[in-house]
């Protein structure tokens, strides 16, 4: 979604302040105007509008889920999203992984001096739109401005609060032998979209990030009574890291099949070219679900009926509780370890 034309709609006159200044974080009039006219106006809701040091609100009965995350993506705008929408989706998705209905977000901005005001406005508008789509309210926040060279344009930190309206325990410790393992769609698109822009790589078509909120489909699964044992969003480290973390926390052996794991052709090609494994690459709108075996067919049907998980696939099973290990059956039928990536993903020589 595009931000409205900046010069026409941004409340801070661009001619006067085309860039963020140190004074915008200094606690004086300029900061007050930034908070009121940019953040206050974009995110407005009754709780934020009280303009208090802390937000006051009532929560519905039930267990609560809480999460926090920081967003440092470069470039700030990328095909398929930007740091603002990604911050909302990422936080909402973390809450969704507990099966929670997201209610409230906080947002703290660390802005590097000199950031174009238009950039900030576009990010804020994108956050506002994403929050509206996810039916969450941004109810409190913070702004700091750091010296030029001390930040990378813009960092965003969020916290999220959601309510758990079901009785299931969704956690790695609940994973059981026989569980069916689903991924909610094709893998690796966010990471490759970012890498393509960052490194100036050009492919035949633009790879767009998969950044999207997934809470609705999780709530649908729960509403249908699907017994979900564990959920994990597949961000940094990709599927390989998520499966290894769960195998380790649950003390289980997991077996997945290469040919069942969906990876789009252009992403596959880009990964091959750079010597990266799509199973190690980050996603922003994908999750893995461990579902009780008897509910697998119904879960597949529900997942595939939604737009965000239309490409969902059953990729493997939990084998037993004889130790923590993830194995991958290769296209040739041989079985090997699927390990966590070691350190940063580095493109190889040849």
């Amino acid at each position, binding site marked *: 979604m595009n931000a409205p034309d900046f010069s026409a709609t941004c409340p801070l006159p661009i001619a006067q302040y085309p860039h963020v200044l140190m004074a915008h974080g200094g606690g004086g009039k300029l900061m007050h105007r930034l908070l009121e006219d940019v953040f206050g106006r974009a995110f407005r809701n009754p709780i934020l509008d009280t303009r208090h040091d802390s937000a006051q609100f009532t929560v519905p009965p039930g267990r609560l889920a809480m999460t926090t995350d920081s967003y440092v993506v470069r470039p700030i705008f990328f095909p398929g999203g930007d740091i603002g929408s990604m911050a909302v989706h990422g936080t909402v998705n973390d809450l969704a992984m507990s099966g929670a209905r997201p209610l409230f977000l906080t947002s703290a901005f660390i802005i590097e001096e000199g950031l174009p005001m238009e950039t900030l406005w576009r990010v804020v508008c994108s956050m506002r739109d994403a929050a509206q789509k996810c039916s969450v309210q941004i109810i409190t926040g913070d702004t700091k401005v750091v010296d030029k060279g001390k930040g990378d344009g813009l960092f965003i930190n969020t916290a999220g609060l959601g309510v758990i309206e079901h009785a299931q325990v969704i956690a790695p410790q609940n994973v059981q032998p026989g569980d069916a393992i689903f991924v909610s769609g094709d893998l690796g698109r966010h990471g490759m979209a970012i890498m393509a822009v960052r*490194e100036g*790589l050009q492919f035949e078509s633009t790879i767009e990030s998969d950044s999207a909120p997934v809470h609705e489909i999780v709530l649908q699964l729960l509403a249908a009574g699907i017994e979900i044992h564990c959920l994990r969003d597949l961000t940094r480290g990709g599927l390989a890291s998520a499966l290894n973390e769960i195998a380790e926390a649950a003390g289980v052996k997991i077996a997945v099949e290469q*040919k069942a794991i969906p990876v789009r*052709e252009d992403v*596959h*090609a880009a990964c*091959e070219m*750079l*010597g990266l494994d799509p199973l190690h690459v980050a996603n922003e709108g994908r999750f893995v679900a461990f579902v009780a075996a008897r509910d697998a067919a119904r879960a597949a049907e529900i997942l595939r009926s939604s737009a965000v998980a239309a490409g969902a696939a059953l990729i493997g099973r939990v084998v037993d509780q004889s130790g923590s*290990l993830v194995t991958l059956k*290769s*296209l*040739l*039928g*041989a*079985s*090997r*370890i699927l*390990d966590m990536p*070691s*350190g*940063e993903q*580095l*493109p*190889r*020589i*040849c």
Partner: protein
Amino acid sequence: MKFLDEYRDGDLAQKLAAEIHRVTTRPWTIMEVCGGQTHAIVKFGIDELLPPKITLIHGPGCPVCVTPLEVIDQALEIAARPEVIFTSFGDMLRVPGSTTDLLAVKAKGGDVRIVYSPLDAVKLAAENPDREVVFFGVGFETTAPATAMAVYQAAAKSLKNFSLLISHVLVPPAIEALMSAPNCRVQAFLAAGHVCAVMGYEEYFPLAKKYQVPIVVTGFEPLDILHGILLTVLQLESGRAEVENQYVRAVSRAGNQPAQDLVRQVFQVVPRKWRGIGEIPQSGLGLRETYAAFDAAKKFQLTDHRVEEPAECIAGLILQGLKKPHECPAFGTRCTPEHPFGATMVSSEGACAAYYRYRRHEPTERVVTQ
């Protein structure tokens, strides 16, 4: 994926494997020269499809692994200089020198950047006239033409702030060195397809004849590798020692002539030390005198780096095919990709790293049952 999935077809792989089983009557030891092939063999489990009589040993064809420790140390010294933008292919960044690695230099403030082509480094030099841009030129015949093109372009643009730390190596002299070693077990080679795409395969005929070894130019996909092994076994079983080309879709006998011409114009053949193996005569490429101004080692007047490999590391034996990674007592315990003793554990194409990533349950279980 088009032109890729076709070469990863499980049913066809099983058929090729069955054919290899059918034609194999005696034990054979085959070396795949290239680290990319090692990686594919372990990743796809190709060796598990082969008859037990066939032993694959993993050769020295990983450019990251064979770059000598002292050259890495030189790279670290240059990269730490404040005026330098040090550019490198990604997987060199994690390779440990004798004290640290390029990632650590970057963390301490060194301007170390990953590039995808040496030409990107030339572009950086043109854009940053007040900085010294250095490219870490490593690799086999595959990357040498691109490095040569970078030198050629930098010379054409009269760039004074661009230089290269060169450690290019050549495959045929390494095969010669392996075959002439007294303890050599290798009976046949899978030659690296992409090296031959550049160089052709003329230079392998004298080697096949002199050492009576089959040499089969082989690609990198599972079906390529299985097909290459089948052709090799057929030669071995019938007592032939010929140069054959499995990778016909990419390799011609003469190779890429313009690329070879450019390499010859910029580089000359020099003796080169290989990490874990030692010096091999006429096995590397160095800048010709005409282009000496682009030699970073001369430009920065580096201190003399003489360093010893960690005594416990058996990377040398692994690179020569004398040991398998899990036969090392430090494998997977004291030596891991996070704390590597030697380069074979660092590079994604190193044999140790490939075994660690895909196989480490095996040796552990073996140790337990012993």
